[in-house]
């Protein structure tokens, strides 16, 4: 990933950037906001450009689907409270990153300190699946050990154009200890399941994250 140029800007404040966007204040894992008391879950979406990261977030947060795709610039931030099965509520703070190559070197800013990551690929594109594998490796190497990763195959409504088999993706996910979900932002199929599957790991994670 030859994004040397964006590193140029980052080099100066490299050490600061490493802290991630929590400003270094909250530790990895779910942080508890000082004011509201509602636990906050920092989550990041990664994946190749055009796989539908923003569409998934918009479907989840606002229940909308906008077919005219708008290319994300840098990273977009959205938060959304979710009720958990144990009747507590958590607030998802979602960083929806831009998929383009030139933003790749900024990704650490968003995944450092994140307690969950959704790595998204497009089931009709082998290339995007390869890119997803690349993100998995990068997270395993650089992100927090406790980070919960979900592998998401988006555009499951385009079954006729499928290029990545569900079995292959599932096997890869199991190998790497991740959940695997195939979803469609367009039809809303399985979208909330992505977040539920993250939420399912939450109680354990919150307990671990808190004492810090």
């Amino acid at each position, binding site marked *: 990933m030859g994004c*040397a*140029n*964006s590193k140029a800007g980052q080099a100066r404040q490299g050490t*600061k950037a490493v802290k991630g966007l929590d400003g270094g204040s909250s530790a990895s894992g779910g942080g508890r906001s000082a004011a509201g008391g509602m636990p906050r879950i920092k989550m990041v979406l990664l994946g190749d*450009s055009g796989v539908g990261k923003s569409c998934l977030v918009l479907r989840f947060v606002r229940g909308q689907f906008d077919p005219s795709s708008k290319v994300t*610039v840098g990273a*977009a931030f959205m938060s959304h409270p979710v009720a958990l099965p144990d009747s507590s509520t958590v607030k998802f703070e979602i960083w929806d990153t831009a998929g383009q190559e030139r*933003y790749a070197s900024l990704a650490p800013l968003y995944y450092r300190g994140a307690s969950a990551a959704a790595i998204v690929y497009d089931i009709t594109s082998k290339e995007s699946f390869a890119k997803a594998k690349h993100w998995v490796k990068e997270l395993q190497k650089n992100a927090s050990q406790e980070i919960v990763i979900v592998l998401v195959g988006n555009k499951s409504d385009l079954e006729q154009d499928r290029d990545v088999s569900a079995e292959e993706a599932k096997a890869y996910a199991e190998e790497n200890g991740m959940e695997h979900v195939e979803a469609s932002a367009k039809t809303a199929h399985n979208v909330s399941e992505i977040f539920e599957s993250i939420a399912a790991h939450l109680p354990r994670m919150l307990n671990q994250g808190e004492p810090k």
Partner: protein
Amino acid sequence: MTVSEAEGEGAVGEEQKREPEELAARVAEEEEEDADVREAEMADTGTPRLTREEVEQGIARMDQHVDRESRDQSAGTDASSSSGGSYQKQFVNKAPNEDSTMPSWRRRKKHMFVFSNAGKPVFSRYGDEQMMSTFFAAAQAIISFVGDKWGDGLLSMEGGLRGPGGGSPWKRKANRDSRAQGPPGKLKALFLEKGPLTFVCVSRTDEPASVLRHQLDLLHSQFISILTLGIERAFARSASFDMRKLLNGTGPLLRSVIHSGTWDLPVVLGGVAPLPLEIGLRKQIAQSLQGCFVPDVMCSLLFTADRVICISKRKRFKLNHKDLFLFTNFVRLNDSFKQSESFTPFCFPSFNPSAFLYVYVSYVTEDVCLAFVSGRADSFHELAEAKVFVESFLRQPTVRTGLEQALREDTLKVRELPMSAGGGFVGETPLWHYVYYHKGLQQLLSPRMGAPPLATRECQKRVLRGYQEMSTASYDGMTVRWRRSGSFTIIACISLDFDLYATFDSIVDAGSAVRICNQLAQYIHSKERDLLMPVFQLKSNTRTTAAARRATL
């Protein structure tokens, strides 16, 4: 107008094979080009001023245009990554399947392309740059040849277009169709070598070379703004580095910048267009921007799609009009900013071409956008809090109504001016349009174009080019410049503090035009306080910074 009319004979076959949507885009493009042809014809024959019918036709055409656009939008279910909302949609590649061998490509009025020193394609305004490798290699060969032989960079070439035997490599093929003979402009080619990249403009628009060079410079600045000078290191490592991968998705942005070189007054004249606003309210807004001090914030901006409401910045942060244009254009073009709060790296090339700053962007109302420029990559949450503060301030009833009114009403409209300063309805006054350019602040005040009598695009373009020519050409230090062309007259009054450019109808006599200009200048000068935008300083609040310092320790 049908496609076959506008196209040369040879291209009709390929045209029919293409996708209908793309075809629609092509038709629109051809129409624009066709308009250019007519423009040239009008200028040649000295057509008298626009008649009422012409104006009405123009309005009807605009309506059709809007209809077509809305149809395009409703039909636009294509989810390709480069097409988006309405503004962005204007700047997708209009000819993605063309290459340099096609007559339709050669007929385009203004080409801009970029390639690396190794001759690798980087960007082309029209056509698929990947398919034009041989063309770029040839252009690169010419440049190196000239460089070797005379030890000097190739700056510009001019080719005679009218003569059948012109020597330019971009000369159009002789075509039997007389309509396709093209506009009478001479073909100009300009080269701008910047580090590992060469920027080329091939144009037959009759704009002077200095103007085209200015446009190439702006395109170069846009490249820097996307990738910083760091790109040079990547080329130093490997000369055959493929830069297009890093530019993925920026095509509309680059094309919009080229478009602005002709169409955006702030770019054409080099200034900032402030939103006229009562000074008391502007000061209050500035205070709210200053009030939420976040360490390392260099600048806070509040702006709309075409005008700036307020800027509050640190003294050491130099923000010139070019950087400001690149930034506001970047925000305007990316519809994703409207969906949610965003945080993105952005390089202000005139301030520091080798580093990114981090920009927080969020729309506080449907039209008003708030941005914070920060030097810190981890300042998002602090900036998001600051935004809540500014947002709640702007929601106060007095502020909101004041701002909404300023947004809704264009106080600069010719109709709003006093009678003596050329005010009045269309037909009552000879004054069509004007620009007041304040030299000290580099700000310009001007009514929006688009209303009659400047309703048609070709008419607007001619007026803009007229202003540009007035501002760039040397008139031997003359303080009043006068130019009658076709259906209108342009006057420029140059003074120490400000320039006034005004467009009148073609029958106005010099005496009354100059009288109106004087009155107009006086009127605007007297209202400058509520029209121009002072730049507010962002002072560091020592208490906050101390706290912030403790927090980081």
